[in-house]
């Protein structure tokens, strides 16, 4: 039972354009959401997060949007850069469970120069 889903396994974007990565979840108890970025042969690196009491959080080129009614969140990267090419994981927490992250399967973003 996959509670956090990233339905696009891959995404290709031109440098300078916007990248939009999507994530859906099923458990309405989740109250915190995070995005991690992962390069090959490295561990996931925290990128940005959002609490369920907000619908938007911005940090530089990265913005996360949360639509609670649709149980959907998205990560916008603008402008996209070749160094952004990586796998992006969406994660959800906690719903009463102690800091237990539930991860999606990831989306491979390729930013073409």
């Amino acid at each position: 039972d996959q509670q956090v889903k990233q339905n696009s396994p891959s995404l290709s974007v031109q440098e300078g354009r916007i990248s939009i990565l999507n994530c859906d979840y099923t458990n309405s108890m989740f109250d915190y959401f995070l995005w991690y970025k992962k390069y090959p042969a490295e561990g996931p690196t925290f990128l940005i997060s959002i609490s369920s009491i907000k619908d938007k959080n911005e940090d530089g080129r990265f913005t996360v949007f949360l639509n609670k009614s649709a149980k959907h969140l998205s990560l916008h990267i603008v402008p996209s850069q070749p160094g952004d090419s990586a796998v992006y994981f969406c994660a959800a927490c906690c719903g009463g469970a102690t800091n237990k992250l539930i991860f999606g399967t990831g989306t491979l973003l390729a930013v073409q120069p």
Partner: protein
Amino acid sequence: DTAVSQTPKYLVTQMGNDKSIKCEQNLGHDTMYWYKQDSKKFLKIMFSYNNKELIINETVPNRFSPKSPDKAHLNLHINSLELGDSAVYFCASSQAGGVATQYFGPGTRLTVL
């Protein structure tokens, strides 16, 4: 300075052997985790320790035993290795309490032959 480190990075072993993976964090965090990323790229939590006390124990075979000698270390010992144990194992750490961002190590790729 590496924040969360794991050793070894690669581990190749035969079925039936016993092996350990070590994890250390120098972030001063109280909580540490072990995650498993299988061949389908699912990243799933296995265990979590807070100040040397087990707080999350997912449905993991008894052959897996975490050990936390102090709050900066969380080792994973695996007995009687099976083919299905082949995966990448990630250690992570976070501050205790509420929702806290988790910081991941580089991973240990375990291959069971």
